[in-house]
């Protein structure tokens, strides 16, 4: 996909809606960009050993992706560095032409499933310092994510407490593929901290917990892995709901990022059926599961659902609620959605504003 870098001809129009994009990926130009925010001891560790992974390769997954660095071909900055690593180019290619009023950085780097738990803590803290110093301080349209070493919930809670007062951070960032199912009590200190500080959790599809992405082992192809990764957040929602997370933390706000939203109604109906049958197993799940989905969970729009008929998409959204969807572009990744063209259905101006900005404003408490 190519994007014109010339000013958009309609951008001056008063009719044009500004956009809150809840999924932008920022990357360091090189590893030392980030490690310089670590203590000397850890800088040295990173130099001598680097990160350890729960998969075959040092540098990434065993599934060759759709494109190098998962990125749009045109997103490599002209002055060098990885896609998403050059703020000026991000402004020129995405923030300005797409009228991004606010963009939330979803940090998929560094790999927080690091095996060395102390290193994970140091990396997360560095990633948080780095976001402030090199992104949000320089560009007020961008908001950061508090990256936490999620498999050490006590350390995560400390990191959240340390960062929560800074409004440059919009959310706490997690991936669903924690070492154990994410709804388990082990992870509750993170949810407790989120509720206490009134911060949403952005749960971005992905992560590598060392377990196969399916219940039957590893798929062969990226085309499978990509779709299966998008199913994992469904398992995470089941885990959180059936373990009573939203009963314990009724004000918790969870945003599911990059998993689509087509599955939402049927997931609710299915969980409601199982809840009805196994009610006695679930004394802490007081409401039908679909009501927690409706109360505590929101979904980012990318990759936009492509139903067979457009009317089906309208019906789908009406089942989920126009108030539950938040626009996301996934810039600079290959499956980027353009806010101008992603929605191919008629929307009222109210619906459009809700999805493009107002739902995000409300979930993130942006002024």
């Amino acid at each position, binding site marked *: 996909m190519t994007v014109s870098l010339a000013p958009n001809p309609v951008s001056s129009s008063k009719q044009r809606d500004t956009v809150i994009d809840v999924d932008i990926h920022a990357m360091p130009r090189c590893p030392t960009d980030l490690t310089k925010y670590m203590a000397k001891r850890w800088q040295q560790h990173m130099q001598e050993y680097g990160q350890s992974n729960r998969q075959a390769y040092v540098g990434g997954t065993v599934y060759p992706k*759709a494109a190098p660095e998962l990125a749009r071909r045109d997103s490599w900055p002209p002055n060098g560095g990885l896609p998403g690593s050059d703020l000026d180019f991000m402004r020129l290619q995405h923030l300005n032409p797409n009228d991004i009023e606010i963009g939330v950085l979803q940090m998929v780097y560094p790999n927080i499933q690091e095996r060395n738990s102390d290193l994970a803590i140091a990396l997360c803290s560095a990633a948080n310092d780095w976001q402030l110093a090199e992104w949000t301080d320089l560009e007020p349209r961008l908001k950061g994510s508090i990256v936490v070493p999620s498999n050490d919930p006590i350390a995560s809670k400390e990191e959240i407490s340390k960062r929560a007062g800074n409004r440059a951070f919009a959310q706490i960032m997690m991936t669903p*593929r*924690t*070492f*154990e*199912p*994410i*709804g*388990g009590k082990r992870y509750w200190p993170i949810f407790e901290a989120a509720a206490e500080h009134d911060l949403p959790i952005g749960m971005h599809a992905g992560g590598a*917990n060392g*377990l*196969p*992405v*399916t*219940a*039957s*082992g590893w*798929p*062969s*192809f*990226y*085309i*499978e892995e*990509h*779709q*299966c990764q*998008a*199913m994992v957040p469904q398992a995470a929602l*089941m*885990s959180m709901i*059936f*373990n009573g997370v939203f009963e314990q933390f009724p004000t918790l706000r969870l945003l599911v990022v990059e998993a*689509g939203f*087509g*599955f939402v*109604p*049927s*997931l609710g*109906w*299915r*969980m*409601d*059926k*199982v*809840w*009805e*049958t*196994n009610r*006695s*197993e*679930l004394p802490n799940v007081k409401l039908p599961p679909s009501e927690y989905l409706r109360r505590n969970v929101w979904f980012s729009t990318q*990759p936009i*659902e*492509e*139903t*067979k008929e457009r009317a089906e998409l309208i*019906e*789908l959204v009406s*089942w989920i609620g126009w108030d539950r969807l938040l626009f996301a572009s996934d810039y600079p990744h*290959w499956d980027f959605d353009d806010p101008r063209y992603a929605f191919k259905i008629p929307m009222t101006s109210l619906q459009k504003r809700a999805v493009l900005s107002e739902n995000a404003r409300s979930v993130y408490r942006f002024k």
Partner: protein
Amino acid sequence: MDASFSAGVDCDVHIPESTTRPLVKYLNQHWRDEVATRGINNMELASFPSRVAFCARSDWRRADGAPPAELSVLQNKVLGRPGVGHAIVSCLHGCQALFSEDLGSVLAHATNEWIAREWLDAEPRLRGSILVHALNPDRAASEIEHRASDVRFVQVLLMAGSHQLLGNRTMWPIYAAAERHDLVIAIHAGSINHHAPTPLGWPATFAEEYANQALSCQQQALSMICEGVFSQFPRLKVVLMESGFGWVPSFLWRADKEWRSLRAEVPWVKERPSDIFRRHVRITCQPFDRYPSANELLRTLELIGADDMLLFSSDFPHWQFDGDEVIPRCVPPHIVQKMKCENPYRTYPRLAKVAA
């Protein structure tokens, strides 16, 4: 309608047996000794522990709480239903989960022998499922070949949670044998737990594990499509059992979208996944999800093309519904009729062979 479609079929009925007790007499002396000496008996799969609510309706349980395992109860509760003339039975025996392909395939063979002689012989309205130990697909294919001459067996049974994803090329001898003999591949909810039953690991509740079965089924359908199973075996039919159907529309929308972007990786997949799915895959109707109103259920039925897609099933003795009505009342009678008669006969070619 063709007269041969007149007797309705219940496509998912269970024989809840997971011990070696009834199998011993079908084993040779070596294996009888092994079973006795080593105390090889209970192989109840952790996916379907019989005391858990969804594994048996409370009013169908025996006095000791166990699910009913007698032919007479099955005759009464399943074949006694109006419009049901046949039932396809399966035994989700835990021998499938053994890591020893020797013991596993011997017990699978004995289970098939037991089903043929003590269930199918005793009740001519029953049809069977061939149990295989799939860790060695060549050996599984031999069992299918051995059993294929008994036309009362209409399908090969596999679990949604398997040792490896079912599309894998190493599994193909099973599909070659199935296609050769007009046998359906049935993929039933539940796991042999060679991997955690969810992509997040081991869940805390049975509710969570059971709800996850819908994901396991999607992963299998996706694997079979992407690996090219249906390009290689164009006559093969797959029936997804006991994993519901509400997930079908969004699964297929996404699969088509992925294919549009990434199909260069799988050039043998020449059509949209949704077209392949509609041609090759059928789904037993239980469990019906809990819909806010009839409208959402009816729309879901339209979206999945329920007319052709769904097969009638009671899931006896699992607990999927209360009272006598297997299917919610709002489902149009012409769809119920197709689910019971025409769709099963079109899906399972061997049903008609017995009727003939």
